[in-house]
Structures are given as structure tokens and as C-alpha cells.
């Protein structure tokens, strides 16, 4: 297995944290991984990308990701941007934070591969109380790809976030993760 994931979002939405969460969970399962942000300056609100590589064997490659297997879009306002599907073949998967159906996303993106939607902003508002869609999108990704186990991601959230935002905040993120896992549509 050698899988490349590309994350799209805006500065401040936790895009890099999402790539890190997935990487941490992969490590806990004994897989090899690499996660990195867009190489450049970051500005709050500007479109940014992040990347995760997961493999059964050691990862030597240190170049950018050009042909991702999976694209995750954290911000629905980015779906119209052609950069979303760049390098993504029809064999790939597109997971979008979007309140509508996968067919609606297909109309916007013209992507012909498999599309999944999750109303991550709403779930985040109801659980975390802020429109931070990153943990929800990780939940949807885990359901759709089985790259890592849900429990491992939960452990990662607790390890990474309890220290930063306290136990209550981490619990809310775990709830968001689980709800997105259950509510993702195909």
C-alpha cells in the first residue's frame, strides 16, 4: 500500500492538523508515513493545501504530491477551484465538506470518480461550537478509505488536542469525528 492524500482548505481551518492526525494514527498502526503543508507562507483565510503519505514500507520520496489517490476538501467554497481535482484520476476519491449530495459536488467539480460528502461545518458547529471542519473530514476519510482505524484517530485527537485545548475540547472533537464517520454520504 502506498497512498497519497491531498487536503484543501483555508489558512486557520486546521488543514495541517488534519494531515498530522492521519499521520499519527498511521504510525500507531505500525505504518510508515509523511505529512507536510504547502511549502510556502501561510495566510489566514487564503487557500492552502497539506499532504499525507501512508505506506506499508519505508517512504524515501521527498518531492511534492502530484497525483493524489484521495482529495479532501475542508472548505466548500473551494470546490469550484480547478486545483481541487488537479492530478486526481477517475480511480481516485474526492471527499468534500458539503451540505448537499455527491451529485451536486460532481456538477461543481466535473470530477468523474467517487465522491463523498459530509456536512462537516454543521457537525462541527453542533459539537465543537466552531466551524472547524478538520476532525470531521478526517472521520469521513477514515470511513471511506479504512486507511487507519477510527480508534487510533480518537487516540491521536486526545494526544494532540488535550494538551492544546483541554479535555472538553478534545472530547468535542472526538464526537465530531464519530458523527462525521457515521454521517458521510456516498
Amino acid at each position: 500500500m502506498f497512498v497519497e492524500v491531498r487536503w484543501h482548505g483555508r489558512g486557520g481551518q486546521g488543514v495541517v492538523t488534519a494531515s498530522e492526525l492521519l499521520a499519527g494514527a498511521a504510525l500507531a498502526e505500525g505504518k510508515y508515513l509523511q505529512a507536510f503543508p504547502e511549502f510556502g507562507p501561510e495566510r489566514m483565510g487564503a487557500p492552502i493545501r497539506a499532504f499525507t503519505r501512508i505506506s506499508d514500507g519505508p517512504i524515501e520520496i521527498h518531492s511534492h504530491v502530484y497525483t493524489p489517490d484521495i482529495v479532501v476538501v475542508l472548505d466548500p467554497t473551494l470546490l469550484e477551484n480547478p486545483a481541487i481535482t488537479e492530478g486526481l484520476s477517475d480511480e481516485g476519491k474526492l471527499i468534500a465538506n458539503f451540505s448537499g449530495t455527491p451529485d451536486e459536488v460532481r456538477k461543481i467539480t466535473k470530477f468523474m470518480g467517487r465522491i463523498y460528502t459530509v456536512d462537516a461545518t454543521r457537525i462541527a458547529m453542533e459539537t465543537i461550537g466552531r466551524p472547524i471542519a478538520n476532525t470531521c473530514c478526517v472521520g469521513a476519510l477514515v470511513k471511506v478509505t479504512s486507511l487507519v482505524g477510527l480508534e487510533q484517530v480518537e487516540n491521536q485527537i486526545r494526544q494532540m488536542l488535550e494538551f492544546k485545548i483541554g479535555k472538553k475540547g478534545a472530547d468535542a472533537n472526538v464526537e465530531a469525528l464519530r458523527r462525521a464517520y457515521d454521517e458521510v454520504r456516498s
Partner: protein
Amino acid sequence: MSTVKVITGNHAASFGARDSRAEVIAAYPITPQTQIVELLSEFCADGTLKAKFIKVESEHSAMAACIGASAAGVRAYTATSAHGLALMHEMLHWAANGRHPVVMANVNRAMGPPWSIWTDQNDSLAQRDTGWLQFYCESNQEVYDTTMIAFKACEQVLLPGMLVLDAFILSHTYEPVEMPDQELIDEFLPPFDPPYKMDLDDARAFGALTTPEWYMELRYLIQEAHEKALVTVREVEKEFGETFGRYYGTLELYRCDDAEEVILIAGSTASTAKDAVDIMRKGGRKIGLARIKLFRPFPNEEIRDIASRVNKMIVIDRNVSFGNQGIFFNEIKASLYSAKNRPPVYGFVAGLGGRDMKIDDITGIVEQADTCDIEEILWWGVKL
């Protein structure tokens, strides 16, 4: 029990300095500084690391403070990048010439203008002649490991050492990094105990005016120390490998045993190039790779040894010496002049200012070397 953390190259450097028990960290905390000293300042503030953190007003002062600490017999560490390193230049000479084994991480970034925050090697290679040991790392694990390897080797030969990591490609990329038990590290790297230090009860002069009668002898001793360092680094790497199970060497050979041609390269691009070597091997090419881990002192003998076994060498430089050619290319050819068997050597300048180096770029360079003129200075992928 060792622990594994998924961390950036920047933080791998910070943890390396923490676990090496650096005692003084002096740094200028503003751009082009990195997260390396940010995390170290947190370690110092929360007591995880019992070190004095000195905030200074420039990189020049950061190195001056490290030199002072080292002269007083204390293990000193700092980190910088690109223009910060350039501003340190005077003090880099002072550290080496004064024989102070300061260790520093430098995040390889291109020099401006035009302003760039992406990687190339011109910042560190411009410091080639300052007398510092230079270690080029390929992965975050290697950044962490090399911090303690550098301290141990540098303190034995009394020379400062710079470990170099590529901007973004390592500095901002998360990879798993295994950190051994502190007890084992302490055994590997005992406290710094220099033969001479600034001590009120045993007063000595440091850096005093030296007439032509003795200056040259002091320079000769530095050259001698560099020659010794080549052996010392190998021994320390070997001991590190035996203790912790990871061995890098001074010139790392990859699939070179039956190779007819070899790529020579430094930094994180080497790892991508290893994948390219695997692909070209599948296509029937007998190609290998030699990664330059240690640039100063330069592993001349190892370069000559690999040269004697292949028909062609291809050097990829993420740097350039304007008016001449790629710096590794130049150094490698100089090292081969006295060799009995020396194959043709092709030099490519590539990936400046962080231009991505893909597997296709490496295979493309190798293919171009099949047909190009050896006298040419080859700039890979220039859109002009």
C-alpha cells in the same frame, strides 16, 4: 524505552539538542529563525531542558554568545537559516579558529534577492571555508541523530559543526522520529569537558594577538583537526550505529556494489533519488547513488574509491558557485585529479530556490548525461 514521535525536521533538531543536553542556547528569535529555537525556548521555560536560553539582537550575537559559552566549557547550541547564517559569517570563523565545538542547525534556504524561503544549499556552502564541519541530512530521524553525533565528534576534535536540513522538505515535513532512552544517550554523549576553558582559577588568554611567527601553526593544527575529524566522525557514527541501530556514514552508498554509474548528491533529494535509482534499476541500468553526508571534512578517499569502480559519475548540485559551476561537482573533480582511475564526471545544477526535485527530474538528468557534452555546465529545467 525509546519513544517515536511524528515531528517536523525543525522539531527533530530541537529534540536532538534537548537530548544532547545543550547547556546554553543563544538565538535571534525573529525571521529567518525557525521553530527549532521556539521549541527549545519552551523546553528551557518549562524546565524540560536545564539550559540557559539567551535571546540576542542578531545572529552575529547569537554565535558570539555560543562562542563565549563554549569557551567557558559549556555545551552550546544555536540554529539559523540563510541570511541569518550569512550575518554570522565573521563569528563562524571565530568559533572554528578559537576551537569552540559549538553545534548549530542550519535550515538550507536560498539567498535573496529575490526573496525566497525555499531550499537550496548556497547559504551553507558559502560558509565552506570557515572551518566548520558540515553534515547534510536526508530525513528527520537523521537530523535528530546527527545532533548528538555532531556534538560528540566536534567535542573530540575541538571544531564547531553545522548540521544542515532542507527548508520545508525536512523542516516542515512530519516524519516518525525515534528517540532513544536518555540514559543511553547520556552514555553515548558524556558532558562536555574541554582541555582548556575560561576559568578564573586557571587563567589563560583566548584569541590573543598572534604574530606571523605562530599564526600559521595554529592554522595547520585546524587542518590537522579536520583530517582527524574524518576518522572521528566515522568512529562516532559507528558507535552510534552499534548503540542505536542507525548508521549513516560519511559517504553513504546505495546500490553501488555492482553499479556502473553513480549519482552523487546531498540532502533530502538523495532519498527521492534512491527511488529513482530503484526505478532505473528495474529498467536495466546498473546505477547506484553516493550521498554526501559529510561535506567538511570532505570524504576524498571514499569519493576516489567509488570513482575507481564506476564508468560514469553524475553530480547533482542544489547550489552554484557563480562564474564556475556546482560546488559539489567542483569538489568531487578536485578530489579525483590524483586518482588513477577517474571516470567522466557530469555536473547538473538543479532545484535552486526550492524548485521541486521529482523522480522524473533525477531520471531525466541521468538520461541527459548519456548524450551531453562533459564540458557543458548543465542547468536542469531552466525555462530560458
